[in-house]
Structure formats: C-alpha cells, structure tokens
C-alpha cells in the first residue's frame, strides 16, 4: 500500500525506473507506475489473412491429394488385374512425355540440346536400372502376409501426405529458393517404400517394372511439374487442379461409392472448412514482444 500524504510540504520526488540507490523515497518496492508494460508490443509480426487467398492456396494441397489418389487407383486396378502391363507401360511413357513437354513449355530459359540429351541419358539409366532390379522387388515381401503390406502401405502414404512439402517441388527445381528439408526427405522416402511394397505383390516382372516406374515418376516428378505450372501461370494452375479433381472424383466414383463420398468430404474439408477455421482462429493470436526479448544477431554465424 502506498502512503501518499496529500498536502504534504515535501512532495515526494518523481518515481524513476532505475535499480540503483536503494528504495525510492515515498514509494514502496511494489509500486506499479503508469509506464508499466509501456514497451510491450503485441502482434507485431502477425500476417492478416484473406479468406479467398487462403482458399486459392489450399488448392495446391487438394491437387496433390488427387494425384496421390490417382496413383492409388492405378495400384488398385493393377492388383485387381483390370489394368494389364502393356497399358501401364503406355501410361508411363505418355506421362513421361507430357511431363517433359510441360517443363519445356513453362521454362522461360530455352533448354539447350546438350542438356536435353543429358536428361534423356539419365532417364534411360534410371529405367534400365529399375528393369534390372525388378525381380528383386518382386520377391522382396514374399514372406510377409498381405494384410501387413496393406497396413504398412496405408500408414506410409499417410505419413507421406502429412510431411509433404506442399509449397516446394521435392527435388530442387531450377530457380527454386527452398532447399528440401528433413520432413520432405522423409515423406519422399515413405512414398517410395510404399510403392515398393505394393509392387512386390504383383504377378509378373513386367508388372513390377511398370508399376514401379509409374509410382516413382509421379512421386519424384509430379511436384516439380506442378511447381513449374504454378510458377508459369496461376490461372493455368487452377484449371489443371480442377481438371485433376474432376478426373479423380469420376474414377473413384466408378470404383466404390463410399470411397467417393469420403474423398469428396476430404476435398471440401481441405478447400473450404480449413481456410475458414484458420481465419476464425487468427483472432486468438497473442504475440508478445518487449525489452525482455533476447536480442537477434544481425549477422549469420558461419562456422
């Protein structure tokens, strides 16, 4: 409590925010001045978000969900033998060609012939290696029961979806700023292992090769292709995403009605409900800064 004698002949001196000199005369140690918490800054670095922009950005996430759903559909059809190995190989080739075409069209810098030849050489090495190793994949999980395989595949795919870097390109695209970080490497590995597990359940060596090539193509290169499309034109990106969503929904509907409902619900959740929820939660944001913060070094520490 403060003893303030009004009308005293010696008015007490002004309170100063200092630590030296002992107790200040006329003030208790627990005196709280009006300048208390004056230097506190609230919500200095908080980004104010707009609903429409968040919804447009969430289209990237649902686009990737559709891609993964299409891959799973191809796997399911191959395992049910409704898709034979020749059509799969055709699918692989067409995907490779179209991916290349898109990359060529969306890159501002024209790719030189030598670079193109180097890419073709790398791809042929990759494909040959995969073809030679196909028998190993075929017999890899022969001793493991099918149930374990499906369980592991589903969990690995979920892990892949959780940890995926939706704003990047998985492999470093020319001109990209972000280097792949730990979580995106883990997600890539999870998807590759999932494809190996699924491929190992297939009857013939050619099947295994075709499915492995397809899965690896999509998981490794699809993020790069979508990143290039997005960089080239946002409108084209939106068009591509909606087309993909339509194709996926149609294919899932043809497969099983329940899965179609679940997938539709998921897409709506990601595109509509989550952005709205995020904007609603922003009002609870309370960021506190003040003189007690640790100072930030303005230079980089190079070891």
């Amino acid at each position, binding site marked *: 409590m403060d003893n303030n004698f009004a009308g005293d002949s010696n008015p007490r001196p002004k309170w100063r925010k*200092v630590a*030296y000199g*002992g107790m200040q005369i006329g003030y*208790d*140690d627990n005196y709280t001045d009006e300048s208390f918490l004056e*230097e506190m800054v609230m919500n200095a670095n908080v980004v104010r978000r707009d609903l429409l922009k968040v919804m447009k950005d969430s289209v990237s996430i649902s686009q990737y969900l559709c891609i993964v759903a299409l891959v799973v559909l191809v796997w399911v059809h191959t395992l049910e033998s409704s898709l034979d190995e020749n059509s799969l190989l055709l699918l692989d080739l067409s995907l490779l060609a179209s991916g290349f075409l898109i990359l060529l069209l969306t890159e501002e810098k024209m790719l030189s012939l030598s670079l193109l030849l180097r890419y073709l050489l790398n791809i042929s090495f990759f494909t040959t290696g995969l073809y030679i190793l196909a028998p190993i994949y075929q017999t890899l999980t022969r001793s493991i029961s099918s149930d374990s395989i499906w369980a592991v595949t589903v969990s690995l795919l979920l892990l892949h979806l959780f940890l995926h870097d939706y704003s990047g390109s998985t492999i470093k695209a020319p001109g990209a700023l972000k280097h792949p970080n730990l979580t995106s490497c883990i997600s890539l590995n999870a998807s590759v292992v999932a494809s190996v597990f699924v491929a190992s359940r297939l009857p013939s060596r050619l099947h295994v090769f075709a499915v492995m090539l397809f899965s690896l193509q999509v998981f490794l290169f699809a993020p790069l292709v979508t990143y290039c499309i997005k960089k080239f034109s946002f409108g084209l990106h939106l068009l591509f995403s909606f087309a993909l969503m339509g194709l996926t929904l149609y294919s899932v509907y043809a497969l099983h009605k329940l899965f179609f409902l679940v997938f539709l619900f998921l897409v709506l959740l990601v595109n509509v409900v989550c952005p709205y929820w995020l904007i609603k939660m922003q009002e609870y944001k309370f960021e506190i800064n003040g003189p007690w*913060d*640790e100072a930030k070094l303005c230079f980089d520490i190079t070891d």
Partner: protein
Amino acid sequence: MAEPPKLRVLMVSDFFFPNFGGVENHIYYLSQCLLKLGHKVVVMTHAYGNRSGVRYMTGGLKVYYVPWRPFVMQTTFPTVYGTLPIVRTILRREKITVVHGHQAFSTLCHEALMHARTMGYKVVFTDHSLYGFADVGSIHMNKVLQFSLADIDQAICVSHTSKENTVLRSGLSPAKVFMIPNAVDTAMFKPASVRPSTDVITIVVISRLVYRKGADLLVEVIPKVCRLYPNVRFVVGGDGPKHVRLEEMREKHSLQDRVEMLGAVPHSRVRSVLITGHVFLNSSLTEAFCIAILEAASCGLLTVSTRVGGVPEACNVLPDDMVVLAEPDPDDMVRAIEKAISILPSINPEEMHNRMKKLYSWQDVAKRTEIVYDRALKCSNRNLLERLSRYLSCGAWAGKLFCMVMIVDYLLWRLLQLLQPDEDIEEAPDIFLHHHGEKIN
C-alpha cells in the same frame, strides 16, 4: 540469552554453493545479511556429488544438501510428490515461518513451494531470469510458473524489466511483485591499489562462452577493435561451447599475443583478473540484471555493455559516466569501445568504487526483503477450498489438472501426519554466532 529470531526463513533452490553464479551468490549474500539482522536462515538445495547432508557455512548458515540427483543443467529430477517428506521434516525441525524459493528454472524450488503452501506456510518467490513466450520450452516453463505463482504470497523480481516479464508470464497482479535489485559485495571487489598503466589498454571479458551471453558478438568485435587500436589487448575469462570459435578467431587474425584466453575462472580469482584491466566488456543478448557489470564497476573498470533486458536500469547513473551502452551489433559495439577508450583518462577507480558502495549494498537488499517477508506474513491464511479456486483460473484444462495435483498433495500430507505426527519430529536448537561470542538458545 539471545532473543528468539524475528523471522525464520528457508531458502530453496537447486542453485547454491559449490556452484557459482548469479542466483547462488544472491542466496548466499542475502542469507548472510539476514543472519546479521538477527533472523534465522536455512538453505535447502540438492546434493552436489559427495557433498550431501547438513553443512554449516559462515555465520551459522545451515545448508541442507538433500540427496536428490540433478538430472539436467543442475536441476533435480521432478518427482512431484517425492520431496514432500523431506520438506515437511525440514520445515518442522527448523520451525520455519517463511519459505523463499529462487529461480523459475529450479524444479526443487517449485516443488518445495507447492508443499509449503499445502502445509500452510507463507511463501515468497524470486525470479532471476528473463524468458520469452514463443518457443516450446518457454511455453512449458511459463505454465509451470503460473501454477507455482497462482497461490503465492509475494514475489520479488530483480529489475523492472524482469517484473514486467514475470507479470506477463505468470498472470500475477503487479501489486504483489516487489522490485528488489541484486547488489555487489563491494568489500571483496576493491580496485587495484596501483592502477595498471594506460599505455596498453586491457579490455576484460568474463562470461560463460555461450550463445546467450553473446560470444558470437565477441568473435566479430575483437578483430575489429584490434585492427583499429594497436595498443589494446583483450583478456577473456570463462569457458563454454563457443570457446572453439574464439580460438579460431585468434588464429585466423593472428591475435595470439593480443587476446589472452584464461579458461574457466573460479569466483575467488575474478577480482584479480578484473583489476588487471581498464575496461569491462559485456556482450550478452539477454540479461535480467547483470551482476558482472556491478562487480567490474566496483573494481573501478569502465563498462561497455549491450543495451538488453535490465541492463539500462542498473547502469544509468549519469549519462555515459560509468557505463557505455551499445546495441547488440558489432559496429555499434566498436563505436562504444572507442568512446570508452576516449573517456578512460578521466576515470578515477577509487571514486567509482566509493559511489558503488553507496548505490548498491546487500544490507539494503536484506532490509527490503525483510519488508517483503513481513508483508507475506500478514497475508491471510486460506484453507484448501479457497486456494483451489485460485488454481482453477490457470486455464481450461490446466486449472483442473493443477487442482487435482494440489488435492493429492494435501491428502499425502495428511497421510504423512498420520504416519509420523508433527509432535514426533524433533526440533533443532537455534545456534547463534554473535560478535560477542557464542550463545546457544
């Protein structure tokens, strides 16, 4: 016969002698001054290696080294109810009236405060550090602090910035928080009898070489200053993970003869290192209250420090008279060092020391702490139900969890009372060491 002590205080913390640091020194000096004022002080801390059991220190200060193992950074392993029996025994034996906990990072302190509240003792807490709000460790620490301080009688902070920080972190009312700064033992930190010659200006740095204490700033600043002033040399005392970077810096700029690395300096030798210098450099990135600056000023050194945390409050004596402040930026620090070197001839170490004696003293701190204890003793007693309502306001889920913890603690206390009634705990006799001779009460 000596009169019975007016207050009987138990200081609890994980950090005490034989460890050296701000908190440890604070507890030691405060206890010594309270003993001289006629109170009884007992310290409780965890065992350090073989140092376990009861020890007596200068002035009759009794220290209980409770045999609990420290598990990370000198703090005891948190077993929420494990310390209840020993705390109860100590409180009954020594007939304690006030329990004073130190340092938010000390688990022993939080547990002892919790048990003391359950048993109805008055509780005071002192916070010595500044914490942020954003990272996972800080969020967890702040929640624990909120729990500890929900039902406290009074709190003490060592600077105004620290008071603002503590009030924000714990949700405590500002009227309950007292601002009592640390002080410096001016009798120990006397300037050199013969001032070292100013032909070669020596800049002393004594700190732990960690990121938080600005070791990286040192790595940037030292080569710049050595290039600008050929007659300046550095003495760096202290050890830590950034030691390697400083060694690399020495080799890269060939400063082996101008930068002397002393390694870890024991507290008893700090003064002898300080008096070899003219300027003291403190580059920490965050500091609730920097005692090192006071020690340097008491030894007659001019200080250059970063303007962070509670440092500006402690050092604004006269504009740039005893300390030169700089932003935590290498170029600004070099400018501050230049300014310090230019005003060095006008500095009189003896006069600085005498001024420090008037501005900071542990006796003054002890008197102000006494006022806090008296205020705490005047707080009304509350029964369990009233106290539980305070815990409920800590949060939607956390409040209910804290209430459960306190209820279980209360039940365990009653169980202990059944197994070993209060009357069966033997009370320790008070031993006073006065100047006139020993009187045993």
